[in-house]
């Protein structure tokens, strides 16, 4: 026997396990109706592949996993798809979720594609594929898709198979271990094969002697599978507690067991892997404990996924409808707001206790900070402080007290002498924290979008302003060029060039379209004018009609409808003409000649500037000469700038025209 470690806290609630006869497996007649939720796992819901009215076979894929963390959903018996809609599901909120409803035909015919296989002849990829296709999820309660878990990149040295089942009343895993011990071992061997260099520790609480015996017998001869027996203490079956119990290590905050090289899987999941790989059968049934003083025929039942809780309760002769029904164990399960809900891959227990067996929900008394909860807490938190903070909505502070490390095991509320529903307080605070985080993210996003929009609007305004300025500058440049040509008598060639430049600048620069229009044919000119007029008329008509309509509306006239249609028509007309005009204008080509000219002008101006720069006066030159030179340089530079602007403008407008 290996040395075991312990984990802090924990409680010892009465077990009530014999009530459900562990080790004896029973079947119920196939229900006429199966309700199969699309989301029975952590992660994205599966996407339906069938339509209402489709005939499906048992084991047929009816909804496909979407994304990496998701699981396939299969028809759990043969029959007709009668609905794909929202139904209440097994959730504490009582909210609806998408389900596929099957009317079973009683034949229970397997899908023809389902075939057995010899894993010895399958390669690793095929085995993975079979596990993935079977839609197996963690059957201990969390429902994490198993294929995704087994596909970890981190090297795993220990596979912990969890047969602890620490919750009172539940004996489903106990029964699986007693009846399917060999299948569990074979499934475990498959998982070990996928994980490579890994050994398995199969952990069982010491209150299940038959299961321990069965597993010891089945694992005999397998060196890489070790059965470990741990003392009974709730919540030793919690993943983190189990790891600490067996290895003495704690999973660091924010990490997962894989970071320690450990992977946890439930025993029932191992059996499901066996079914998937050896038999080719997907995850369509599970063993569930139906128990409690309110049930006459308590026991472990093999049930199709999608069987409704009320059907099971009726078959097991439960007291109805006064008793409360709990899905899962008494410590972490949730009360069903409505028993007309399907049981899913993760439902391990249906508990109908007598009113006395459960806490009598007597009103909470004041917290006296007695610290019993702190002693019971397996997560080493301060439940009494968390309670005070949750009660006063001090969400910032409660985070510092590590609320998010709470595993909601309920040990604190179990021992609380003041009967305070501590876990509900924590769940409330956790929900609020998550909601606040979402809101903060949302607010940040809104802020960014708002700021981006503001910036965009501002940019539009500045761009408009910029264009206006450019036009004004061009006009000024023409003036300046004229003046420059007057002053620079000394160089007649330059003056002529400047004159030429100024001439070309004015039409090409002022409004590019007019310039280009001028270079085009007369017909163009005419039609452009016509279009412009038509657009303006349409616009005015629309404006007038709109005004009449507004007035009529303001005066509460009755005939505004007619006016409105008219306004609408006119608006459309106006828009159409405006559009036609815009289209026409954009179609008109930029004259290549003008561009060439502009380029020449620019090159000349550039040369002038460079020349003047070269002949910069030194200290010996007289002052008046210096001043003249300076002035000439300034004029030349201005010319260059203008030529540059013009060239850019022409280039841009030609680009626009082409696009």
């Amino acid at each position, binding site marked *: 026997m290996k040395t075991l470690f312990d984990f*802090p806290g924990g*409680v010892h609630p*009465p077990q009530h396990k014999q009530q459900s006869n562990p080790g004896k497996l029973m079947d119920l007649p196939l229900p006429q109706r199966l309700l199969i939720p699309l989301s029975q796992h952590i992660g994205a819901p599966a996407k339906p592949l069938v339509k209402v009215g489709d005939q499906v076979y048992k084991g047929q894929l009816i909804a496909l996993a979407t994304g990496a963390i998701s699981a396939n959903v299969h028809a759990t018996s043969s029959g007709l798809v009668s609905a794909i809609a929202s139904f209440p599901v097994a959730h*504490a909120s009582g909210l609806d979720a998408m389900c596929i409803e099957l009317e079973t035909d009683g034949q229970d015919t397997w899908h023809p594609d389902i075939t057995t296989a010899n894993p010895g002849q399958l390669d690793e990829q095929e085995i993975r594929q079979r596990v993935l296709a079977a839609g197996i999820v963690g059957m201990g309660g969390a429902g994490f898709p198993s294929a995704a878990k087994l596909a970890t990149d981190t090297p795993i040295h220990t596979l912990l198979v969890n047969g602890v089942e620490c919750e*009172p009343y539940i004996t489903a895993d106990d029964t699986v271990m007693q009846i399917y011990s060999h299948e569990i071992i074979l499934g475990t061997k498959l998982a070990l094969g996928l994980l490579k260099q890994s050994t398995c520790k199969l952990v069982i609480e010491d209150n299940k002697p038959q299961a321990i015996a069965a597993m010891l017998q089945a694992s005999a001869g397998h060196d890489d599978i070790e059965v470990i027996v741990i003392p009974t203490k709730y919540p030793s079956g919690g993943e*983190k507690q189990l790891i*600490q119990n067996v290895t003495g290590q*704690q*999973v*660091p*905050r*924010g*990490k997962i067991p894989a970071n320690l090289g450990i992977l946890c899987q439930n025993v029932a999941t191992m059996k499901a892997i066996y079914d998937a790989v050896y038999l080719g059968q997907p995850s369509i049934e599970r063993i569930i404990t139906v128990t409690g003083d309110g049930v006459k025929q308590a026991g472990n039942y093999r049930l199709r996924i999608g069987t409704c809780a009320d059907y099971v309760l009726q078959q097991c002769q439960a007291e109805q409808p006064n008793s*409360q029904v*709990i899905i*899962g164990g*008494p*410590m*972490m*399960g*949730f*009360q069903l*707001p409505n028993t007309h809900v399907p049981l899913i891959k993760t439902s391990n227990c249906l508990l109908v*206790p007598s009113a006395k*067996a*459960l*806490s*009598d*929900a007597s009103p909470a*008394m*004041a917290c*006296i*900070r*007695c*610290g*019993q909860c*702190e*002693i019971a807490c*397996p*997560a*080493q*938190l*301060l439940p*009494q*402080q968390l309670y005070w903070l949750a009660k006063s909505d001090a969400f910032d502070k409660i985070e510092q007290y*590590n609320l998010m*490390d709470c595993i909601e095991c*309920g*040990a604190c*509320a*179990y*021992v*609380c*002498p*003041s*009967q305070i*529903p501590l*876990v*509900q307080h924590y*769940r409330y605070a956790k929900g609020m924290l998550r909601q606040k985080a979402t809101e903060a993210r949302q607010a940040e996003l809104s802020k960014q979008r708002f700021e981006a929009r503001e910036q965009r609007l501002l940019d539009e305004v500045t761009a408009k302003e910029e264009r206006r300025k450019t036009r004004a500058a061009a006009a000024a440049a023409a003036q300046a060029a004229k003046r420059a040509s007057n002053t620079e008598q000394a160089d007649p060639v330059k003056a002529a060039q400047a004159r030429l430049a100024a001439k070309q600048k004015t039409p090409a620069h002022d409004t590019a379209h007019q310039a280009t229009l001028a270079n085009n044919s007369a017909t163009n000119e005419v039609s452009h004018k016509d279009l412009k007029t038509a657009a303006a008329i349409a616009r005015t008509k629309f404006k007038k009609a709109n005004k009449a309509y507004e007035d009529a509306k303001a005066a509460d006239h009755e005939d505004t409808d007619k006016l409105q249609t008219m306004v609408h028509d006119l608006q459309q007309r106006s828009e159409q003409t405006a559009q036609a005009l815009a289209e026409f204008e954009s179609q008109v080509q930029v004259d290549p000649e003008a561009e060439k000219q502009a380029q020449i002008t620019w090159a000349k101006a550039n040369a002038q500037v460079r020349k003047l720069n070269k002949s910069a006066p030194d200290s010996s030159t007289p002052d008046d000469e210096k001043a003249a030179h300076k002035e000439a340089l300034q004029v030349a530079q201005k010319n260059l700038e203008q030529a540059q602007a013009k060239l850019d403008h022409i280039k841009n407008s030609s680009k626009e025209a082409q696009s």
Partner: protein
Amino acid sequence: MMALFSSPHLHGGNHSQRLMLLVLAAAVPGLVAQIYWFGFGTLLNVIWAITLGLALEASVLLMRKRPLGFFLKDGSVIVTGLLLALALPPMAPWWLVSVATLFAVVFAKHLYGGLGNNPFNPAMAGYAICLIAFPTSMTLWTSSGEYFNLPDQWLWFWTEQGNVDAITQATPLDAMKHLQGNTIKEMLAANPTIVNYADAMFWINLAYLAGGLGLMLLKVFTWHAPVAMLSSLSIMAFLFGTGEPDLYAGPSEHLLLGATMLGAFFIITDPVSSATSRSGKLVFGVGIGVLIYIIRTWGAYPDAVAFAVLLMNLCAPLIDQYTKPKAYGQQH
């Protein structure tokens, strides 16, 4: 719709009332010992403090418009009344007990929001206010074995009639502080009654110790605070007492005289006003032990449990702040 409750749906069956009852039961040996050595005064105190406490609690609850039966049932006021009465001197008259109870229940408890919200230990707050306001009445201790019979005590309790001087005297702790140039041995030799008195206190403290250990075994509270307090007090007494055994009382005197055991097991273990985490309780206990020694040895008052507890109550939130345990997965 059916009312839905969050898990867990099981409860371990522990109730506040049970805890309160256990505390009451565990205090009985101490009460009996106190009556045996110092007369029926304590019994009258206890009955009066509890009766008045319940009445006061009821009227405050009425004023605060809180459900009466529900809150009276928690039994906290009975515990407060009992502990207060045990701490008061046996010769306390009715008005003194009344003032202390009034202050404890109304001011120290309900003005802060009732059970669970009081920053100070109510019993010690009531005790301290009387010690400051009525120092003479608060030090009226009978000589052990020489006390009034019940009718005389009854008369004294209501009217303060009777020859008190003949039967009262300084407590051993007081005497050890005011040595007036003598050594402890000389003082004890000169005052045989003090030796008797010390014997009585020894037995009473043992009775409280027994009750307290019982509570600890029943897991009403953890060992942290009492053990921390008793050890720090012993260490202080040892450090200062070994050097000058003639002038300073040693560890055994400190542990077994005065209200040490009552304080260690019944007062500082009041969870509401103490530090809350286990490590916090260690700090809390050490602080009280050290303060008790300091006040007893160098302060103006003969005993110090009340002041030490109140001072550390003040520090409890601070201690809580700095003694947060590391949660699972954070030991890295």
